[in-house]
């Protein structure tokens, strides 16, 4: 790691202040950031530890939605009775991120701010059409939030405070894991709302998480795995790397989408 100073604000206001330093970086669960620092791929002057801020933690119900604080850890989302009852697909997704050690540290906000193209949470946020609230007082719709691999709508020093998840009629997330990292080689989140179906795909595209309009259209007409017959993703723009070819990822997206629909019931 390059040397840095460490700050531990006790409130969001203090954190916002600390983040005004343009070379400051926020530390949430650290499960991606600390390895990144160790590889010297980032060199912040100050690390602003968000773990002492109570106001960005916790899960509550708000206007028929499930509101989850950005500092909430994956294990807490997985174990939440409210999430399990209202959006079991989200609890299931959180329960299958990484391994227990990662789930006990990693946070929703950290995952979304990083926007790794293979992360699981972006699929749920986009698939459920959630709203991302920030320290700048902005409420950003999921469709506007994700702007490409590791790119988001967050401004300089802007922190995620919470995310509101609408409750679907049914939903499911299926992923094919890259077996070494347990990130999604390809993961598909399918959510059925009254009158609309959203399908979000993670892990596959060079542009990060994306919606799959053809699948949404087919499933809106008929929410069954069979409705996806003849619907296929092209390999253009898919990631090709040591873990899989673009064609393989495109193929997996189709398989995972069908399985997610079946799992949603």
């Amino acid at each position: 790691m390059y040397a840095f100073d460490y700050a531990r604000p006790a409130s969001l206001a203090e954190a916002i202040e600390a983040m005004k330093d343009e070379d400051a970086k926020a530390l949430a669960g650290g499960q991606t950031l600390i390895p990144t620092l160790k590889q010297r791929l980032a060199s912040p002057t100050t690390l602003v530890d968000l773990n002492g801020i109570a106001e960005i933690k916790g899960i509550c119900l708000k206007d028929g939605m499930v509101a989850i604080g950005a500092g909430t850890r994956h294990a807490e989302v997985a174990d939440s009775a409210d999430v399990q009852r209202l959006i079991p697909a989200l609890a299931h997704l959180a329960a299958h991120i990484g391994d227990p050690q990662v789930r006990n540290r990693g946070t929703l906000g950290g995952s979304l701010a990083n926007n790794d193209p293979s992360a699981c949470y972006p699929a749920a946020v986009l698939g459920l059409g959630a709203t991302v609230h920030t320290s700048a007082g902005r409420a950003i719709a999921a469709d506007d939030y994700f702007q490409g691999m590791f790119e988001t709508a967050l401004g300089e020093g802007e922190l995620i405070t919470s995310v509101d998840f609408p409750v679907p009629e049914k939903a499911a997330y299926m992923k094919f894991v890259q077996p070494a990292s347990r990130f999604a080689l390809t993961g598909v989140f399918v959510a059925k709302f009254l009158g609309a179906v959203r399908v979000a795909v993670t892990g596959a595209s060079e542009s990060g998480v994306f919606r799959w309009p053809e699948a949404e259209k087919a499933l809106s007409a008929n929410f069954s795995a069979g409705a996806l017959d003849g619907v296929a993703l092209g390999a253009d723009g898919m990631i090709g790397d040591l873990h899989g070819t673009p064609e393989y990822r495109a193929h997996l997206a189709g398989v995972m989408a069908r399985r997610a629909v079946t799992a949603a019931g």
Partner: protein
Amino acid sequence: MSRIHVTTSVNGDEVDFLCEPDETLLDALRNRLGLTGSKEGCGTGDCGACSVTLDGRLVCSCLVLAAEAEGREIATIEGMAEGEALHPLQKKFIEHAALQCGVCTPGILVATKALLEKNPDPSETEVRYWLAGNLCRCTGYDKIIRAVMDAAAELRRA
């Protein structure tokens, strides 16, 4: 880059130390507190050899900054036995020959204890997936699973 004074609890003992801002909890445990039972297998949170609990939750100490330990409770392998009396899990690992080179063993024991505190009656599948973040290169995990299941049963009887 000033050093940070950290006061924390390790295995029930209040300790304090000075650390660098970029120092991990693992390095502080090993180099400042002499607790070398936690190992660095990968340094990236993928192998679990550095597993400890932080306020009762299982974490990789290589991905926690030492500064983050301020005011928290840390438990490491060194605190598992009560004096010379081994914890039932430790005894079962010996009894089932669930170890070879021993580098993964501390982390696996810490992880297993955390599981059994959360879920005293896990299924074999739950154990297998809970320990997915703790790599072992010597055994085939078979004896490890047997030892965990046996220890869990014994702890439930106790």
